[in-house]
């Protein structure tokens, strides 16, 4: 059944892979360019961890202030671009996975082979989900690689969007969007692919904001104390200026976020299975 799922959907896999590959190439190019631009300043000792690059003024540091304006565009472009692209890919793969078979009536042929309907569904979902997870991981790692020189050069954006676009976060996002689109389309409220994709993306955005907010606030935070509270440069501010997650919390937070999204996605896939199982011909 896995063979057949792959044979049926390899066209989709190809264009998804190409899109993400193009995005990754773009990110790596910008990242390498940024790294290259910083190289002389790094050699001159203008950049050191934990300090704003602007704090150091040496003979070789002239021109470092130009780095910010040159690369400022890359921060919002990729921080927002990565979650958006992976969410669209996930939804475009998820919506037709079951719904198109029903639309083309090929489910009548698929469900009357010797393979039980449950295995048909699991094989399709697992094949697609594995491919998408790899896609998300690739995008997350490439963006991580890009963002490093940007941070090094002193470009700190508000750090939560960054958190949602690097590391494991895109894996969770692509799977959530996939599961949501599959459930919406298979639930037969919206049999056609495009409206289902639209609804799924809107729902995805809402779920992402909610889970993001929950992960930000429900996990333990650190507090600054003293008369002049100061959050470390690489920490994430929660609210006000006193409560934050330190940089060491990055991976625990990423894993928490990923698990939350995976739980949501699993629930939606179970709903999709219910709709598939009870569906008449």
């Amino acid at each position, binding site marked *: *059944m896995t063979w*057949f799922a792959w*044979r049926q959907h390899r066209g989709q896999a190809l264009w998804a892979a190409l899109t993400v590959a193009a995005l990754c190439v773009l990110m790596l190019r910008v990242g390498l360019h940024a790294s290259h631009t910083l190289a002389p300043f790094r050699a001159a000792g203008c950049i050191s961890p934990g300090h704003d690059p602007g704090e150091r003024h040496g003979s070789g540091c002239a021109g470092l202030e130009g780095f910010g304006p040159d690369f400022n565009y890359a921060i919002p472009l990729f921080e927002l671009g990565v979650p958006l692209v992976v969410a669209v890919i996930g939804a475009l793969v998820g919506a037709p996975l079951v719904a198109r078979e029903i639309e083309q009536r*090929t489910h009548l042929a698929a469900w*009357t082979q*010797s393979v039980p*309907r449950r295995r048909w569904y699991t094989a399709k979902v697992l094949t697609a989900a594995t491919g998408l997870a790899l896609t998300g991981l690739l995008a997350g790692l490439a963006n991580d690689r890009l963002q490093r020189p940007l941070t090094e050069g002193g470009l700190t954006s508000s750090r939560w969007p960054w958190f949602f676009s690097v590391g494991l976060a895109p894996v969770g996002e692509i799977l959530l969007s996939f599961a949501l689109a599959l459930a919406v389309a298979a639930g037969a409220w919206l049999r056609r692919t495009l409206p289902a994709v639209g609804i799924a993306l809107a729902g995805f955005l809402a779920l992402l904001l909610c889970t993001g907010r929950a992960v930000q606030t429900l996990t333990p935070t650190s507090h600054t104390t003293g008369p002049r509270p100061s959050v470390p440069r690489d920490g994430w501010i929660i609210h006000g200026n006193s409560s934050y997650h330190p940089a060491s919390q990055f991976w625990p937070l990423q894993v928490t976020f990923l698990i939350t999204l995976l739980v949501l996605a699993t629930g939606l896939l179970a709903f999709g299975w219910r709709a598939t199982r009870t569906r008449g*011909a």
Partner: protein
Amino acid sequence: MTAVLCADGLGRRYGRGTWGLRDCNVDVPAGRVVALVGPNGSGKTTLLHLAAGLLPPSAGTVHIAGLAPARQLARIGFVAQDAPLWPRLRVADVLDAGRHLNPRFDTALAAERIGRLDIPPRARIHTLSGGQRAQVALTMVLAKQPDLLLLDEPLANLDPLARRDFLASMFAACTETGAAVVFSSHAVGELERICDYLIVLRDGRVRLAGDIDDLRGDHRVVSGPAGWPQSGGWSVISARSTAGRTTALVRSDPGAVAGPGLDESQPTFDELVLGYLDDARHTPQEALA
């Protein structure tokens, strides 16, 4: 004699009140070729989908060789109306899928049949004609080597030559493997040569089911002066009046003697089927009992 398909009080309701099929009791013995006949919306597709495990019954049960259809998928070959197959796949891929998805799939038989029918294996399904697609779908289920073939309007997209070939290969496959076939069709005239069992559906109910020879033996076509069925103890299935004479399909009854002026004959297959399809419009209900 074991029934390969056994429906007991089988019913399927759509929405709140409409029954697509109701109180269906049918036993199809192994190795039979069954014609499932009825007008549009009479429940033929519903019955086939229930038997193929695509629909859960709303009432009653259906068993394939003693088990629920969902547990007998390998023993059922099903082709839906218009033979839908994955349009973007190539013919060879579809047959490959058959091999991957079915334990008893006969790859050589499938390849031989596709070759004999001059269907290019590299062609994508959506480039085939409706008839060619139907042949690919039939090849799939024949190579699956099922005990029961369920075919929904398999002749609809075929030209007369292809119909003859289709019916012949279906018949050959079944006599060879002993598989039973249930297929629905409007083409009443073409069924007689290959079917030996008949199920007539109307308004979601089984009107008639049984061995065709037995059924023909049990019925008579009687014609006489207009209005003759009102006299005498005939159990009339349906009657038609033309040019001052009434012709009726009746159940044979040793007690009822063909009186003077009445002509009596054994019904042909067509007369039998059309008589039962006609019944609701031309006969009072008690005649059906």
